[in-house]
């Protein structure tokens, strides 16, 4: 990982501390090089939490002043005073079963101690160095504030300023938009409106369980369980392999959306630079189900099947047996009418109808098997090939990914950032490791309150003289580690090229 130039090593102006800060600041600095004692100091102060509280409020007012401390979670050696002091009041008070996820104190602690701003920055900047390029500087962020106001066109030169803004405004979530041709904050000062246009953004996908509502029998609305999460697992498998094998994309980040869906961020340079027509093309390539509620059969594909669909069908077949027929049981009782509607053959339909009418409690798996059995017994008036194709179409209708394609088609569409907290569930939008996609369990994803209490419960000492960052003390660690690995893979690709550029410019 090209971390030799890490952001915290870049010199940043250190404004003169204000009078109210001087005593604590010098106190903190005196400890700056004595790592092992640092922790003790923090602990000691925790006991004086009540006494410190008024002071903490004061410190917040000076948030803007203090900018020498960028990434507390990854650079704890230079811990500055405001963190230590805010740790004290936040930890004991906030963790109770009644606390709401969007409680301001919880959100503040989350942004201060857990959110991996550093890796988010590197991910979006495609370089660890803030002075490299404008990918981060001109990137739009949009905040949803605690009062539900929506604040668009925010942009930040560094990760630290983004973090600062988050701590100040405590957004319940924030979204990431495209990189613009100029700084989004300057858009109104431009002479010509056309000088402000989106230039690049990751190719994104959004899969949401609402689109499965007509075939989902286990839960409704915002609820999910393991049975219906299988829909998302299937979708991830199919889309991921198509993006890699067909389009040749390598850097694909899947993220749990916090409740009942998943997002994909395709970060390859080639994907980021696609215009709307190309985004539409990829979305169209992956989209299969057409037609609203009244259109009857939703899958109508020509034969022979396109290689992408053929491969998808092979992936989905086994899921169909278990996740659909057994778990969802989609044609129980009266609901078999829809299955009949999807079959092309009138005489077969009639025979099946008779059979199922006499056995209303027959499970879907048996009904599915009945189709072939009844067809074999001579009730088929069309060719067996027609029936096979109709059955393939049915498998696809029940398993093929249902994308919210509009999200993918536009360069300037915003999508919720990874690692923010879902306001409804409190769960963190963690990345999903596609190598272990089957093992991912949305109900096991840590909630923000759980993570904060894990920090408190953590009992390890400092290993190898190294301060342990807060996120490392929690079950967020594997997810941040995965994200870090992903980002470093992405940077390696971009980094090699940049070095060459630098050499070129030196020769000038």
């Amino acid at each position, binding site marked *: 990982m090209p971390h030799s130039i890490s952001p915290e090593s870049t010199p940043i102006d250190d404004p003169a501390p204000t009078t109210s800060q001087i005593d604590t600041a010098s106190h903190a600095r005196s400890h700056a090089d004595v790592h092992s004692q640092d922790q003790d100091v923090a602990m000691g102060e925790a006991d004086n939490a009540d006494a410190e509280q008024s002071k903490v409020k004061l410190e917040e007012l000076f948030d803007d002043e203090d900018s020498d401390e960028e990434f507390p979670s990854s650079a704890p050696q230079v811990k500055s005073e405001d963190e230590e002091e805010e740790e004290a009041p936040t930890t004991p008070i906030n963790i109770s079963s009644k606390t709401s996820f969007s409680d301001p104190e919880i959100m503040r602690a989350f942004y201060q101690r857990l959110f991996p701003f550093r890796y988010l920055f590197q991910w979006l900047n495609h370089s660890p160095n803030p002075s490299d390029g404008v990918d981060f500087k001109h990137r739009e962020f949009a905040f949803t504030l605690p009062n539900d106001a929506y604040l668009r066109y925010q942009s930040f030169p560094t990760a630290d300023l983004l973090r600062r803004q988050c701590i100040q405004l405590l957004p319940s979530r924030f979204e990431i938009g495209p990189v613009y041709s100029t700084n989004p904050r300057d858009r109104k000062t431009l002479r010509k409106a056309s000088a402000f246009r989106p230039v690049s953004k990751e190719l994104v996908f959004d899969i949401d369980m609402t689109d499965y509502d007509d075939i989902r029998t286990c839960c409704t609305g915002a609820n999910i369980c393991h049975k219906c999460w299988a829909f998302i697992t299937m979708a991830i498998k199919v889309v991921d392999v198509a993006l890699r094998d067909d389009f040749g994309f390598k850097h694909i980040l899947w993220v749990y959306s916090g409740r009942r869906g998943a997002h994909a961020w395709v970060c390859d340079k080639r994907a980021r630079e696609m215009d709307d027509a190309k985004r539409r093309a990829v979305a169209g390539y992956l989209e299969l189900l057409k037609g609203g509620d009244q259109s*009857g059969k939703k899958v109508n594909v020509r034969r022979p*099947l396109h290689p992408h669909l053929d491969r998808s069908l092979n992936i989905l077949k086994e899921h169909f047996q278990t996740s659909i027929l057994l778990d969802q049981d989609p044609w129980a009782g009266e609901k078999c009418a829809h299955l009949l509607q999807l079959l092309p053959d009138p005489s077969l339909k009639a025979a099946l109808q008779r059979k199922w009418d006499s056995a209303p409690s027959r499970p879907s798996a048996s009904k599915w098997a009945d189709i072939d059995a009844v067809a074999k017994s001579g009730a088929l008036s069309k060719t067996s090939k027609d029936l096979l194709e109709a059955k393939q179409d049915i498998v696809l209708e029940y398993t093929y990914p249902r994308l919210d394609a509009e999200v993918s088609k536009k360069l300037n569409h915003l999508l919720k950032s990874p690692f923010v907290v879902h306001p409804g569930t409190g769960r963190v939008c963690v990345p999903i490791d596609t190598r272990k996609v089957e093992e991912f369990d949305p109900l096991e994803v840590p909630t923000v309150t759980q993570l904060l209490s894990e920090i408190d419960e953590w009992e390890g000492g400092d290993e190898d003289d190294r301060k342990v960052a807060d996120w490392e003390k929690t079950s967020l660690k594997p997810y941040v580690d995965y994200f870090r690995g992903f980002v470093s893979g992405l940077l390696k690709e971009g980094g090699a090229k940049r070095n060459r550029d630098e050499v070129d410019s030196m020769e000038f």
Partner: protein
Amino acid sequence: MSVAYSRVDPKRRAHIDPKKRQFAKAEFAQQHYDHRLNFYEIPPTAEITLEEFETWAINRLKVLSELESCSFRNRSPDETAEYMKPILAKYLPLQPNSTSSQQLQEERKKDHYSHFILRLAFSSIEDLRRRFSRLETMLFKLRYRDDDPRERRAFVQSLKLDWEEVGEAEKRELKEQLLAAAGLKKVPTAEEMEWFKVDWERVPDLVEQRRVFVKRGVAYVPQREQMSLVLAEFTKRLDAALELTSRALPRLDEDDRLSPILAHLSQSFTTPEASYSESSSLNGLSALTAASIDSLQPSFPLCMSHLHSTLRRDSHLKHFGRLQYTLFLKGIGLSLEECILFWRRSFKLITDDKFAKEYRYNIRHAYGDVGGDANRRGRGYTPYSCQKLLTEPLPGPGQAHGCPYRTFAPDNLIAVLQREGVTDRETLKSVREDVGKQRFHVACNRVFEWSHRREIKKVREAGTWSAADLDTIVHPNTYFKRSWLLRHLGEGNAGVVQHQEGERMEE
């Protein structure tokens, strides 16, 4: 471009260094056209008269407008070709080399020049540029399709597009996938067994429709899909050239002979798209309120009626359905306040708070009450025309927008029509045929004519309505307006009349 009967433009003349003038190639030479098709890469340099300048441009404009109306009417490529044939022969003929006609070079010159004149006229505004590029691509496609195969191949070769042919070994290895992606069943002919490789980004429309095999970012394009590649290239180059022209355009202003013609040309390229102006809202229909929408449903076209019924059934509509319906309501004259009230009451299941946060803004945006400058000045969006509804992507699961004649399975469509009171078997049969041929608006007009047959007969006999008043309907709001007027014949300014509607109220 320079125009005859005057001296050479002094600015142009200065381009040639006096010392080199004798060696320079004649700048205003007549171009020779080897191919019938033209990518319009080289601007014309020879002189033409002002009259030619104007007539040629007008002729081409005529062709382009007819093409545009074909696309609005949703004609299939074959129907369009058939329809355009006499028009092209009259205004912009182009004959193949094989005819060895005397006119050959003259025709091609006219095609070449008229293209560049219109390019000048339409490059100033982005909207016009986009339309021009779309229509020129359509025209090129039309000609490409009916070009002689041999001449077409020669033309494509002259373009020197860098395409890599797929070698035999690779073909053998990928045979199955290649054939499947191309949609070929067994035993392909020799020509069908030819593919070439390009980056998939160059053939986005083929990728979108899954008509090519894609592997690691490379698309394997079958020979017969070459057209799509050539077209993409044509559009790409034209768009780039238009952009350049628009920047160079201000310098042309000094020429007081050309600019009036160009200005006139670009004005006459007015949109034939059926737009719906607010001035045409109905006299008799005063003070529309949120509560009166239900009573108007019998006059709604099926697309809106379906949205309304879905809304009443689910107490909700998804985004595109809301947008389509809001704009329609705006078009029939529902005020913003009443429209917000209408949606608020219709979304029975959600709280005021959620409504205010998630829905109110979009309604106001559609009315132009909020949003950017351009949106407000334009008073929001225009109600969607049939053309718009017919060319949009199909709705997905749970969505109800679009044109039902297009989005419904025929059986469901017939069932819905029957529920709406269309009982005539002949009409239903014809509707099924129309829909099968993808003539959705014809089907819709057919239903209209049947449902209003008595009224139409009456106005025809009385001669109170002109033929234009009964022209084909191409806008949902026109459908409503005409239906409402027919249902309220002779009532003058009657206001919203509810007692009349009883017979067809089904909901």
